[in-house]
């Protein structure tokens, strides 16, 4: 049954068409069960939301050029930053890497034909779009002004904006990510190819698995919490409003029980991408495979025990605060393990500074700054001063926005040839990666200084002495925007390039590079059987898998 020959690269004349060629009708896309096509659908829709989220961000930055505002009314400003937060978190950061790269790669990386539940996967995309439409309609009908955190009792009793519709959107999008999470967990457990043991899984799979655990355990709690807010608005049920006998801090506990782990939902798949790219472009086996794999699970586990650090100043007892503070410090340990392992992987590797690797270096810089400033906020005595200042804004943009976005770009540049069979203009790619890195830091480094000097977040006006730093931040946002537009331009232009590209342009040594680029609908010809684990970057590596011609 099994032959010793490695899986052949390239297309032979009788090979079946790639997943992109297998049907050209709109119906063949909108009713597809193919995880790769669903990933492309997600990529398009996530990009649209990212564009609108960024548009809101640049409106905020332009508004803050002057201490007295430029073009927005104060209540419009509240709606714009709320729209920015809700779109970016619920409709971009949470789905981006799992639903695009994870969806595309997870089955191929483990040698499966598809995710365990293809129709559930398609349903998750429709739920995502439905949730997103609710969010868009809420903005079109006049917007929301609660901030993305929907703090009660303002959101539940007093705000007369479209809170209900927005929450319904977030609620539906939550079920979309639950569907993806369940699908990933089952797929990793049951769909692995023969020979693909747990410790032969590429680390991207470990990251996606850990993220899925958080999604499955956290999202239902925020779903019911948001539903309670809607009920409070409609029926005045009294659970979160003190004048009715309720408890507003209960909302914060329930909300952050999900929303703090949600930060790790965003970062764990990002770290997974970094693992794959760093080892490929260092031409060296990843350092400390087991430590990286288990640190993902450790982050997922610890992530559920730290939500109280969002409530150091909201009536939480001091002793509770101390416990949450200590546990928050502990998250730094598995995070640092990863960073040290990546550094050790690069050390004495044959580093090739291709675009994906440039993004990896950017990721490590941003993640270290974001992670270390997190320790300032986990310490209660400093947090009392820094709560709700620009320091917090800068911190979470470094860890969840910057790191996530840059990891997504690293992954997109690494797997773009795999997804579409085409290469992009590498010179422009290098330039835009530099623009994005410089732009991001210019935008958010000044915000650390602003925050430590007392600039509160979400304020429409500010004291004149903060203007210089605000202007620097706004200029940074323009540099960042220029880099992103350039990226979009050359990636789209790559579709005009001829396809004659090697199936494995980077010399990757994981299973997804052992099939054609782009892959066929069934991913592999026959069933791959794994001979050894990933990342064999010796000069003359052994074949990762051999194929068994099943069926």
């Amino acid at each position, binding site marked *: 049954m099994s032959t010793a020959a490695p899986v052949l690269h390239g297309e032979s004349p009788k090979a079946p068409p790639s997943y992109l060629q297998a049907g050209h009708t709109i119906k063949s896309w909108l009713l597809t069960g193919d995880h790769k096509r669903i990933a492309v659908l997600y990529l398009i829709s996530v990009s649209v939301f990212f564009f609108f989220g960024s548009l809101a961000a640049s409106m905020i930055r332009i508004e803050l050029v002057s201490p007295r505002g430029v073009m927005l009314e104060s209540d419009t400003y509240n709606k714009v930053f709320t729209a920015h937060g809700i779109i970016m978190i619920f409709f971009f950061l949470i789905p981006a890497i799992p639903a695009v790269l994870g969806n595309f790669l997870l089955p191929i990386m483990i040698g*499966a*034909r598809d995710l365990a539940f*293809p129709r559930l996967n398609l349903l998750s995309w429709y739920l995502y779009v439905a949730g997103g439409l609710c969010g868009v309609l809420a903005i079109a009908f006049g917007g929301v002004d609660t901030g993305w955190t929907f703090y009660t009792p303002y959101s539940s009793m007093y705000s007369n904006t479209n809170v209900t519709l927005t929450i319904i959107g977030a609620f539906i999008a939550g079920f979309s990510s639950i569907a993806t999470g369940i699908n990933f967990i*089952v797929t990793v457990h049951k769909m692995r190819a023969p020979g693909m043991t747990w410790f032969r899984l590429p680390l991207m799979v470990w990251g996606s698995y850990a993220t899925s655990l958080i999604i499955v355990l956290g999202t239902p709690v925020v779903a*019911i919490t948001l539903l*309670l807010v809607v*009920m409070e608005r409609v029926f005045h049920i*009294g*659970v979160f409003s003190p004048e009715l006998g309720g408890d507003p801090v209960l909302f914060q506990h329930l909300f952050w029980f999900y929303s703090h782990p949600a930060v790790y939902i965003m970062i764990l798949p990002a770290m997974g991408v970094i693992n794959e790219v760093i080892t490929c472009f260092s031409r060296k086996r990843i350092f400390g495979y087991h430590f990286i794999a288990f640190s993902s699970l450790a982050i997922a586990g610890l992530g559920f025990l730290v939500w109280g650090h969002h409530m150091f100043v909201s009536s939480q007892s001091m002793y509770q605060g101390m416990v949450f503070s200590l546990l928050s410090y502990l998250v730094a340990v598995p995070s640092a393990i990863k960073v040290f392992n990546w550094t050790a992987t690069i050390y004495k590797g044959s580093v090739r500074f291709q675009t994906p690797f440039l993004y990896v270096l950017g990721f490590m810089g941003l993640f270290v700054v974001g992670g270390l400033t997190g320790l300032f906020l986990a310490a209660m005595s400093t947090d009392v001063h820094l709560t709700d200042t620009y320091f917090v804004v800068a911190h979470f943009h470094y860890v969840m926005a910057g790191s996530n976005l840059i990891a997504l770009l690293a992954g997109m540049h690494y797997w773009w040839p795999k997804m579409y069979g085409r290469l992009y203009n590498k010179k422009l790619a290098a330039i835009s990666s530099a623009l994005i890195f410089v732009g991001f830091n210019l935008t958010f480094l000044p915000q650390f200084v602003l925050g430590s000097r007392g600039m509160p977040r979400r304020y429409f006006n500010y004291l004149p002495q903060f203007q210089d730093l605000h202007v620097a931040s706004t200029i940074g946002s323009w540099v960042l925007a220029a880099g992103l537009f350039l990226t979009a331009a050359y990636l789209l232009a790559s579709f005009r390039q001829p396809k004659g590209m090697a199936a494995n342009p980077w010399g990757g040594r994981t299973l997804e590079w052992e099939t054609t680029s782009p892959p066929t609908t069934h991913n592999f010809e026959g069933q791959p059987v794994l001979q050894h684990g990933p990342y064999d970057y010796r000069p003359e590596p052994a074949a990762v898998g051999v194929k068994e011609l099943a069926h």
Partner: protein
Amino acid sequence: MSTAIPSAHAHAEGGQTPFLQHHFREMSQQFDAAKIGMWLFLVTEVLLFGGLFVGYGIMHARHPEAFVAAHHHLDKTMGALNTVVLLISSFTMVLSVWAAQTSRKKLLVLFLLLTLACAGTFMVVKYFEYSHKFHEGLLPGKYYSHKGDTVPGQFLFFSFYFMMTGLHGIHVLLGMAAIAWLVWRALKGHFSSLYYAPVEITGLYWHLVDLIWIYLFPLMYLIS
């Protein structure tokens, strides 16, 4: 989640049925995947209701007199009757799974219909309970209009009563739809010892719906 499209591998190997989906290697893999998927879904359900149970517990602790006074408006007999009905339905569901596993088509249809009947009875009892509450003005939040209360704040209890039993009721209705679909497929002869995953995982779901009621009944009807 677990339904299958008849695929080209219908007669590929011994022990396979037309319900093996194209991306699975064998029936046991497909069965295990469906089962793990359902268990994970049940975890999310527990956490979904968990948020409400936490809210209920905290509100109960803050307003103990109001909750005890309000719960006297509930009819313990009706609640107990519904508990018994659901327990019986779980038993008939177990028998349905057994009938499917042993390829007893007629018994499978019979037990599924019995389960459906119990679920229907539960909803009818719930309907009478709800109408009574509506009539008395025992409604959630600002719609609460019951006259003659001596303890204030009883609307909070009914906020949780309607949210928790309401969400549970929606789950019963969804379960009834799933069981009706199983009846239809059973009549078409889809299920046998080779393929019974949909019956099994619907059974898992049904037991959880039952279990949630087992917790709701004492929490709502029997507090002191």
